[in-house]
């Protein structure tokens, strides 16, 4: 998670925050990851983390707006691995600050929801949130190896 280290290569995709665009975003991440030679098992985990992060943005970032705003997904290839940066222009919201669901509860006590953030935190090498001007930025790093 070192944005100042030089990126060998990077690609950005910017589309409306709509579920219909999920496959395009995931293909964008996968393409870059494959070109960078990241192992399939790691790409698969990264893809899941990116889906969870994007679906959160699609669901919450532009609630109440007539038209969905944009999501920017930047993928940078770095010496250690990949850095995926997901940015939206919704109100300030830190997904990582939300409390995690208790995964030890019995079926009757479990309620749907909250698992997306837990999956992101568990599956990738590093994840960090910051607010940048009027944007929420989530940085997801997946190293080539731990």
């Amino acid at each position, binding site marked *: 998670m070192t944005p100042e280290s030089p990126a060998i290569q990077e690609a950005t995709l910017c589309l409306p925050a709509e*579920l219909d665009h*999920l496959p395009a975003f995931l293909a964008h991440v996968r393409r870059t990851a494959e070109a960078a030679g990241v192992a399939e098992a790691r790409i698969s985990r990264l893809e*899941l983390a990116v889906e969870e992060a994007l679906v959160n943005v699609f669901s919450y970032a532009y609630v109440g707006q007539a038209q969905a705003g944009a999501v920017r997904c930047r993928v940078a290839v770095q010496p250690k691995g990949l850095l995926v940066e997901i940015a939206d222009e919704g109100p300030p919201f830190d997904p990582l600050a939300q409390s995690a669901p208790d*995964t030890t509860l019995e*079926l009757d006590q479990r309620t749907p929801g909250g698992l997306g953030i*837990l999956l992101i935190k*568990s*599956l990738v090498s590093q994840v960090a949130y910051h607010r940048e001007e009027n944007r929420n930025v989530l940085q997801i790093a997946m190293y080539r190896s731990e």
Partner: protein
Amino acid sequence: MEIQERQQGDVLILEPAGRLDSLTCRAFETRLLAALDQSGAVVVDGAALDYISSAGLRVLLVAAKHNRGSGGRLALASLRENVREVFDISGFSAIFAIYPTAAEAAAALA
């Protein structure tokens, strides 16, 4: 998403293929809840399931709760390693009955 359906005795086996994610979860939820209402004993065979996200987990949780109310039985089988990892992280490995094969799961529910 393509969902194969077969019967083993009184047990209905659903085999979803491909990705169970935010795009496909609605279709799968409809099929799974209908299967539970129809059969009472359902196995979800994960042999062809490449991927599951939290949207897919949500469907399974909703189905299990739906099932509790109606006295139905639900089990899972043949989960691939990456799907199993997602189950482990989310605590679902402890709340669902998971078998190595669909045949074993169906035998257990019969």
